[in-house]
């Protein structure tokens, strides 16, 4: 049994608990905002398979390895897998969602500037996981 007072430890724990509550609250709020899919978002079906990505737009256009989208529009990705787990990632736009066979996962984004960005796989899926890459091409609006 120690004979000294304990108030420094209690204050320290109080500060840490307060910090954790703050982190939790901020994260909760940010996640709530980020998960809210806008109403008019255009659906793109993303299919991951060993070891490439394919995309299907609402109008039926299909793309392999490359995805063309327009500035200013909101897009909702419905992500599926044909074989093993993959993870669809556009790092520059912080888009990340696993492709799990047997389920459809959803994530959305709205590109803001024209440009090209990398698409990569962020879940180990075997031999060519390291090169399961694609390109996102954001174009200026056609209208």
């Amino acid at each position, binding site marked *: 049994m120690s004979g000294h007072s304990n108030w420094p430890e209690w204050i320290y724990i109080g500060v840490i608990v307060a910090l954790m509550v703050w982190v939790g609250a901020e994260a909760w709020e940010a996640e709530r905002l980020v998960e809210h899919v806008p109403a008019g978002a255009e659906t793109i079906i993303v299919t991951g398979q060993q070891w490439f990505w394919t995309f299907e737009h609402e109008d039926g256009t299909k793309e392999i390895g490359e995805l063309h989208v327009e500035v200013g529009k909101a897009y909702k990705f419905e992500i599926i897998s044909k074989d093993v*787990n993959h993870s669809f990632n556009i790092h520059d736009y912080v888009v990340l969602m696993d492709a799990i066979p047997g389920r459809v996962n959803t994530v959305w984004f709205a590109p803001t500037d024209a440009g090209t960005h990398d698409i990569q796989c962020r879940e180990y899926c075997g031999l060519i996981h*390291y090169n399961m890459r694609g390109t996102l091409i954001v174009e200026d609006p056609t209208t």
Partner: protein
Amino acid sequence: MVLELQKPRPVWQIMFSTHHTDVGLLYLITSLAFLFLGGALALAIRAELFLPGAQIIGDAMTFNRIFTVHGTTLIFLFIIPFASSVGNYFVPIMVRYKDMAYPKLNAIAFWMIPPGGALIWLGFADFTWYATPPYSIISAPGPAADMWIFGLKILGISSVLGAINFIVTILKCKHPDMSIGQVPLLAWSFLSSSLIILVAIPTFAAALLMLLTDRLGVSGFFNPAMGGDPIAYAHLFWFTFHPEVYVLVIPAIGMMYEIIPRFSRKPIYSYNSGIFAFVLLSIVGFSSWAHHMYATGMSFTEKTVFMVGTLAAVPASAMHVFNFVATMWNARIKFLTPMMWSVGGIALFFSAGAGGVANAAMPLDFTTHDTYWVVGHFHLFVMGTIAFGSIGFLYYMFPYVTGRMYNETLGKVHFIMSFVGTVLVFFTQHVLGLYGMPRRIFDYPPIPEWIAMNQIATVGAMIIGISMAIFLANMIYSSGKGKLANTEDPFGVGGKYYYPFEAKNPSH
């Protein structure tokens, strides 16, 4: 001492022994051998990733196998057996009992480690140490995958048997005059981690069996083609392996509880806080597992629940940091090798935890999940805290085990190089992850920032590698030819020890 190389005992006497000091020695040698084997694999990985393109590893499959076996080896064949070594050697002494509660079971638990290790190394599976389905079922080449599954099954049973032994020894075999509130914190750490093992490991044992039957095609638990759900495995796996990380870290913190007060020449600031923190961490550690699964498509509510569970564990870990800092306050600290490793370990423990809080925040996981941020984060725990605490304790127990002293200067050189190397590798990897580099990739596009950071990390890894070579030489040479230690007080820090150092081995 159990390892007197100048007057060696017959090897068979040690191998067939059931005495806790001999079993501890067997665990020690085995775990250190696997530390070096797993570490060599790490150096191969870092050498390969120095530049984009293939360097020393010819193809992706070999690379994938190497990182799988690296992770599996260091967790299951180094960290856990090393903790078992320390526990076996010291827990009976700490509770003033003659041996572990079940000496023969103890020996059996040890002898499961070499076959488990052999299965893993001879198989060399490629599906990462998580073995996630569906890849591990439909795509991972056998027999490597099946050998890994069997190897881990055996190692899991070994852990459970060891846990039962520790719990019974501490709770039931402690000296009648000793209350549970007088048992040293190192013993409490083994009690806590053993209780976690008992609750957590059976889940993984079930998952392994289900994985095996899925691979054989006779079941479809995790295979969508047969109506199963891969996410079920993720839940089972992480339900075990999140608490398991506390199983890994708690004994290392316990080891620091031996060293830091002793080298500070005063008792631990708050023994009760230490116990409370261990017990709280053991319980709360079960509430956060799916923070590893934020990207699998869980609902907002699920993610929130696990985020809260994750953040709830932080105060318990923080209590240990406070305890150590408060112990060193107003002390008179002798900075010998064991103390340097322990203090360095606590500093890195704090950094690892701080990075973890960023991961726990759900939306931030989108930036860091499955990138090198995670690699940097968990390595700060397993290398920065656990390996540092373990190696520090190894230096500390060296005179007890061998009766000799290691070379102090080389020990300090080992620490400084390892600390610098660890910071170079793992802090850099946090930033590398923020730049988007995924985990488990054999090659990467020639993005200049990625290349630069990979190179820094490789340099750091090589520094660690050289320091480990110095360590190995120091250990081997000093075991046979080191200066004889003053067995009453090998480190000259004074104080009365909680328990007698002489471990009476009946074979001596």
